[in-house]
């Protein structure tokens, strides 16, 4: 798993809005060591589509999002947005282009400035971009608040602490779409919300997408949420991509042992659900010293010598369904596969 390669990238004539190629992000630890947060990740997003990026915390999914925004610029690799490579764009042009890319963050309350009024928070993008007359500014802000389900009359003059988490996330959405972006990167937008509010926000995002023709990169650790919103799902593990496919296909018949483990861990509200332990044991290894070969091998029941020596390359196993694994689940398990380490099975 967790391999390199670009077989899953689609041809440029398929209206690709964002194309990330061989993205590497490393952080120095200060001790002549590096955190390999993202190691050779490639992915693309077609105009109008929602790509879901899923994985455990620490797998590098948020780092990918920030690297796309050039916050900070990645260590290496290309981020091609609408035909322009953002990594080599001069600062000024980058700022211009980046207006078309917006982000929504996980913590709805701390991502809003507590000292400012809601209408000023929503208008901030307009103010920075400039060129909006005062009257147009307030009309636009009112419209945005209305669209996300807040009453502009009462909400506009208030400050974020007067709102619930769900309402703050609505404000964040208004702030993100006010500049009429093409691509909105949602980094765990609903994981801090209650289930009933989560459903409202997910429905709102779908409405916004339809209304403004948005393209979404949706990052989350909740597989059910990702399936609900996505047209294409990318599974990441420890800075690498494991599996890419359409959600219905990927969830029904995962090819990567890691995806299978993730799916098995989802709590199911069905009281008769089988709790048989196919879920993963152990913790994510350290990204400072990632395992050789396939990075998932230390937690994988199918791993053998090949997985230690050689990194798998992503390949198309079924039409539109890609996996980076030496022993994908549609092949027989290797006879020599090492059983899990005793420490891991104790879980």
């Amino acid at each position, binding site marked *: 798993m967790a391999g390199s390669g670009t077989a899953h990238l689609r041809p440029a004539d398929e209206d690709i809005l964002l194309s990330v190629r061989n993205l590497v992000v490393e952080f120095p630890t200060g001790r002549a060591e590096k955190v390999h947060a993202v190691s050779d990740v490639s992915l693309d997003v077609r105009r109008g589509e929602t790509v879901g990026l899923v994985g455990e915390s620490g797998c590098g999914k948020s780092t990918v999002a920030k690297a796309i925004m050039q916050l900070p610029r990645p260590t290496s690799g290309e981020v091609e947005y609408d035909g322009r490579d953002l990594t080599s764009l001069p600062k000024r042009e980058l700022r211009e282009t980046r207006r078309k890319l917006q982000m929504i963050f996980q913590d709805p309350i701390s991502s809003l400035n507590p000292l400012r009024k809601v209408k000023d928070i929503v208008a901030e993008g307009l103010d920075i971009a400039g060129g909006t007359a005062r009257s147009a500014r307030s009309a636009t802000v009112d419209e945005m608040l209305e669209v996300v389900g807040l009453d502009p009359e009462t909400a506009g003059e208030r400050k974020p602490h007067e709102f619930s988490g769900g309402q703050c996330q609505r404000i964040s959405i208004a702030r993100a779409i006010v500049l009429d972006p093409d691509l909105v990167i949602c980094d765990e937008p609903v994981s801090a919300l209650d289930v*009933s509010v989560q459903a409202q926000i997910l429905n709102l995002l779908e409405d916004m997408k339809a209304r403004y023709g948005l393209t979404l990169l949706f990052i989350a650790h909740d597989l059910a949420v990702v399936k609900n919103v*996505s047209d294409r799902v990318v599974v990441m593990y420890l800075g690498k991509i494991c599996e890419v496919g359409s959600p219905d296909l990927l969830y029904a018949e995962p090819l990567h042992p890691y995806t299978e483990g993730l799916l098995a*861990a989802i709590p199911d509200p069905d009281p008769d659900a089988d709790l048989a332990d196919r879920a993963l044991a152990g913790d994510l290894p350290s990204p400072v010293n990632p395992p050789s070969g396939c990075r998932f091998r230390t937690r994988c029941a199918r791993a053998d010598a090949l997985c230690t020596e050689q990194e798998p390359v992503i390949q198309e196993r079924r039409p539109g369904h890609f996996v980076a694994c030496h022993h994908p689940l549609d092949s027989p398990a290797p006879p020599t596969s090492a059983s899990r380490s005793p420490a891991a099975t104790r879980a």
Partner: protein
Amino acid sequence: MIEAVVTEKVAEAGLAPVEPDAPALSVTDLRVWFDTARGLVRAVDGVNLHVEAGRTLGVVGESGSGKSVLSRAVMNILAPSAVVLPGSRIEIEGHDTATLTKEQARHLWGARVAMVFQDPMTSLTPVLTVGRQLTETLRRHLGLDRAAAVTRAEELLRWVGIPEPARRLRQYPHNLSGGMRQRVGIALALSCSPRLLIADEPTTALDVTVQHQILNLLGRLQAEEGMAMILITHDLGVVAGRTDDIAVMYAGRVVERAPTKVLLREMRHPYTRALVRSIPRVADPSHTRLRAIPGRPPTVIDPPPGCSFAARCPHARPRCLAETPVLGGDHPGNTTPGHRHACFFPVGTPEGDQAFADNLAAGRTAAGLPVDEGSVL
């Protein structure tokens, strides 16, 4: 050997169960209000709960439903601004917690009842090693000497699935991953063999894979120890396969309570059904429109009379705004033994169907919520 020490200490404190089959926890008419600048917040407003020894109860509710205040009241760790109203009664193994001596109280909440928190850093201090924190509890409550406490601490860590326990004991909480820390939190909670464990959102801060490990671990330990457990969560999926009974809380009250399988099959309260239906299901195809619950939970400051869910409920009739339904009252559909709900027009009863049909004909509920065919929550 530990069993003998625990038995001796319990007897010494005069905390042996009042009767051999006394319920692990019995909460009667609990009301916890908070005096705030904005008014009196009725966080818990008349909760009755009963957990038999060795059973597992899931308490499900959203933020603000009062589920955490309930657990803190049972643990006796309420904030100073909390007021427990007269008439509230909490009994643990038959002991009324209001009448305990200081010494008894210390032992009861230190050893007989324990809690696992959402963020393990809440129960672990960052400035002491894991070993120091575990042995401190063991020495204090069980009177073990230093060497025996270290041996027991190692046993505990091994028991909760932590490899190399001797090395881990010398480490600080920040050296451990989130999952490992929660395992230490569990080891700490279970160190004195409690008879009741309260786990308040124990896996909310964790990844799905680690969540699965921790829930399995709690289930295994609960079965091995035969202790009672209350699992508090906002995620019905977490409690579905792992509890004997479920209580659903809304706005400070229990609105439905039943054996787990009964509740999930024949849910009666419109809120329970709405909660279940708002969860995205992996089995559904992608882009399935989610059935969100309209509106948001009520503030529990000076609540108006009537059912607290009425404003969001497609079944709401004029009666729901005038009268407050009581859990276990004489409502339609309270037929299955052990299944209690607080709704005048419950799901799956002729009364409920009629209420929805009437609202549909009027285009709105008695509370003014617009309804159409799709709002069968």
